[in-house]
């Protein structure tokens, strides 16, 4: 069997450009990296995959504080009996459906950080989400996200639109938005193209002229033009790399598995992408939480398990760190609908060969709560971000997050 030849960046620049016109529509990253050549992509480059558990995950139903006496007392319908928990240490254990994650934990590839939050917690999905993504208590008003700022610092002048990618319907999330790096999002690589010109030369030429930027006109028009230019430039590469990819393992059905398979394909295809962002929804469990959360845990475990196996089988795992977060945790006390209302601190997970496996911080107390009856946080989420920035991406956390966030010592 002849191994499939890797299409390199050079191939892409010399022949693979297809119809992307040279001139006004050509982003400068193509011109510049043509000169830089292969040096632009090094296999050693580290990749961060950020997984948002959206809706506000109930922490105790994921990292279960089975030794807390008050947990059993305050949780009735969402209670997980100690004998079902997959223990990590004498205090906490994983949800019974997180079997692959437990295995990774035993291999020292998983770090669990308890009680991650921030001062004066905001209980609105949107505002708290913005705070987490901006890494700024002003939320959306900060204007940029922490990963976007990290790109601004680390990749100054590099305007490759595929540096940070979000997989999923919708626009690139606030976290990826930097001053120079807007982030790029798509749901399915094969549908990521313009086909209105029907590949007729004259119509293609008109399309290119009508979508070239001359840097004039109102701001909203310029914004659209920039987006189209970047999309046209990235379209061909993404489709080609993703189409070529055959996963080595089977991923579970559903969008999380599909998206992680796409990411594995793009990593294997040597895309210069350093940051991937995706989300997994359904955690806003105000009512009948138990069954819903069990399903979510099973889906999460299967998809992440397959992703790690896939990467390991191709010797790519060492380049990848996965980080999970949620916009907030949920109320320690159940509501009247067999569910839980919006709360504050919750657990984060870091996954990959770069972590120092283990459990960090004690699970927050069910009895010593904040004035709104919610968990007190043990550590600020920006201290976890700081660790990822400093230790994994090699970016000064001070430039991205500001002063006062000492990294949690959870990465090697």
């Amino acid at each position, binding site marked *: 069997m002849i191994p499939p030849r890797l299409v390199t960046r050079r191939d892409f620049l010399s022949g693979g450009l297809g119809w992307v016109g040279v001139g006004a529509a050509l982003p400068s990253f193509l011109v510049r990296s043509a000169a830089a050549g292969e040096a632009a992509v090094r296999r050693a480059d580290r990749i961060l995959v950020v997984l948002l558990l959206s809706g506000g995950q109930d922490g105790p139903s994921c990292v279960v504080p089975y030794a807390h006496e008050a947990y059993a007392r305050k949780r009735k319908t969402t209670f997980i009996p100690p004998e079902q928990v997959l223990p990590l240490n004498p205090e906490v254990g994983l949800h019974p459906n997180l079997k692959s994650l437990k295995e990774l934990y035993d291999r020292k590839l998983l770090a669990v950080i308890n009680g991650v939050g921030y001062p004066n917690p905001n209980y609105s999905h949107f505002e708290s989400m913005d705070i987490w993504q901006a890494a700024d208590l002003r939320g959306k008003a900060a204007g940029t996200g922490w990963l976007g700022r990290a790109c601004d610092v680390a990749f100054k002048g590099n305007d490759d639109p595929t540096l940070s990618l979000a997989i999923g319907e*919708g*626009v690139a999330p606030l976290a990826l938005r930097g001053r120079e790096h807007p982030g*790029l999002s798509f749901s399915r690589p094969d549908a990521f193209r313009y086909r209105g010109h029907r590949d007729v030369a004259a*119509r293609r030429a008109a399309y290119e002229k*009508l*979508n070239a930027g001359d840097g004039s*006109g109102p701001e909203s028009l310029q914004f*659209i033009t920039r987006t*189209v230019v970047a999309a046209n430039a990235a379209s061909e590469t993404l489709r080609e790399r993703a189409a070529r990819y055959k996963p080595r393992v089977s991923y579970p059905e559903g969008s999380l598995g599909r998206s992680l398979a796409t990411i594995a394909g793009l990593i294997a295809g040597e895309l210069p992408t350093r940051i991937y962002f995706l989300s997994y929804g359904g955690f806003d469990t105000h009512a009948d939480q138990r069954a819903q959360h069990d399903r979510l845990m099973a889906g999460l475990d299967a998809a992440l398990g397959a992703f790690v196996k896939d990467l390991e089988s191709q010797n790519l795992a060492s380049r990848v760190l996965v980080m999970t977060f949620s916009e907030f945790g949920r109320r320690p006390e159940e509501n009247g609908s067999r569910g839980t209302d919006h709360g504050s601190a919750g657990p984060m997970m870091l996954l990959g060969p770069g972590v120092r496996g283990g459990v960090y911080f004690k699970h927050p107390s069910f009895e010593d709560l904040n004035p709104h009856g919610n968990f007190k946080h043990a550590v600020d989420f920006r201290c976890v971000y700081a660790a990822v920035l400093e230790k994994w991406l090699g970016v000064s956390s001070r430039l991205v997050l500001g002063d006062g966030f000492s990294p949690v010592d959870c990465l090697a």
Partner: protein
Amino acid sequence: MRRAIWIVAVGWGVGGAAAPGLAQQKPDPVEAARAVVRAAQEAARAAEAEAASAGQKAEQARAKAQRAVQEVRWAEAALAHTAARVAEKARQDAQRAFEEREAACRKAAEQAARLKEAAEQAGRDARAAADEALQAERRLQAAREQLELRRREAASASVAERAKAEKALEPLAGAVRKAEEEKSLHERRSAEKAAAAEEARRRAAGAQAAADRALAESREAFRKLEAATAAARAAEEEAAAARAAALGGLKPLSAACFDEAKARHLLWRAGFGGTPEEVLRLCRQGLHASVRQLVYYTTVPAAAASFEAWPRESPHPWLPYEAKLIEDERLHLESARQEVERRQVRAFRAWWLGRMAESPRPLQEKLALFWHGHFATQYSILDQQGFLLIRQIQMFRQQATDYRGLLRGLVHDAAMIRYLNNDTNTRGKPNENLAREILELFSMGVGNYTEEDIRQAARALTGYTYDRSTGEFRFVRAHHDEGPKKIWSHTGPFTGDDLVDLILQNPATARFLARKLFISFVHDDPSDEVVERLASVLRESRYNVAVLLENLFASEEFYSPRALGSQIKSPVELVVGTLRALGVRDGPYEALADAVRRMGQELLEPPNVKGWEGGRSWIDANRIFHRYNAVADLIESLPRPNGTKGVDVVSETLGGRSFNRVEEVVEYLVRSCLGVPLSEGKRRALEEIARALPAPSEWSRRKEEANAHLRALLVALTSCPEYQVN
């Protein structure tokens, strides 16, 4: 208070200084000093009371003055309104008078033309008769000459022959007599015809004079109509300004500034755009009349079709027997119900898009969509009870301009109650979901309430639930928390309805809604002053959104350069606007509902309770391709009755208009499609594509060929950044 303390301190000072003198008369100087203090305290209290009452009186006087000023404004507005109505009545009278004059003028002109024609005919007849008379005379002359000749011959002939010759003269003499008769007959006829022609000439001249008079009268009536129209427009403008002032709203645009670009802007923002003809019609109609027609749309007949939605388990004779079904039958029934449910929701999405594209009341649909995004409810959370959400959207349509009614309707709305779990919000076990979102997203915004207010509001909403089989609202008293609640500074045994009243009384609500409406309809950066003015309109009109929009759509801000062409079209606006601009009816609405979903605006499925974010969030690399591709697909692949595919640009979009050159076609389509100018280079790129078009004169003969090239032109024109904004 500060003043009282100061007085007490002075009292102490006096007491202290006087102490040695007083000690001789009264043995207890401390008691004396205390008395002084008490007196001073009383004086202070009295002064304080007086100040308070004066303050109150001043406050009352100020409020009264304010009310008086406000009443003056309303009186002025009423006066201006009456004046405008009188002027409008005069304009209508002038219009009628002009129409009558014009009709009379047309009739007189027709009459004059007819009589002129008749006179000409009579003239021709008279000339012909005169001709014939002349001919008869000539014939008589000839006959006489003939007779004379023969008579001479007979006179000179021999006796024997004379008798024969004389005999031969007889018929000639007869012919002469006949010719004489004929001559006199024709002469008589000619004279008659000449007289008739003269008469006809006279009558024609009279009719012409009458027609000239009628024309002059008609011209005069037109001048009067023009004057009356100008007066009515001026009165209308004055009335609009007075109304805006009374409402505390935005200053109206000068009506003279209302041009084609502004009319197009209005059509797009108050609806989903339109054709260049509709833009011209608005322009002729004038600013205020156009705004009124769009905003008070109940004067326009509604589209007839409505959408009946059914509960998943609709009342059916089957129901009592369901318990007796065996497992297989139950599954079969269940899957049939799921299929019906799935189809119903699909059908509704398609129906709604069609309604937006075809309704003669576009603003009603635009507002229904606005409220769907504002009071966002996701179908996927409703356990396949689509009819609940469909009914909610019917409520948005029916009460689209009444925010009070909508907010009240919302706490009684089964879909919302289910979506935000209020059906499990019960006494002692409150669920805060609905209470929080009502305050945060539906009415006031973060910063106007505390976490404690949310807890109390949740208690007020306990027991607000719905009947699962009918989808009707139900208030379960046993689950309602009847205890007192403290919300802001109010305390009482509030219900959910009381909560709505408290929210509507809170000044933050009008500001929040005003800002959101402005951002949605104008641009995303209103000044605080503009928001304050619009909030005032909402308060003065008791949250009548039509009154706000009337003020907004006529305002200078609405037509400011930062508003024109500044908004990124939502997916629904993009698709529906394309249908309206191309003149397509009966579009493939189910497929288009899928298309808007891919672009990020699935109907009945906003992304979360905050609704669609709008603006730049519509655009990213992924969505821009979906937008371009969907519009291109619509233009190229629209199914047509005759089995072919693609928009029939020649008949539907260009509707038989005639063009001389391809540049004119490009110009017309650019005007149909774009609200912002196109650079010279881009226009040339379009003209390049248009060169392949057959000459316009050939289109009827080579229609399919022309259409194919016109579609390519439209696809290029719609796959560009300029088409994404309006």
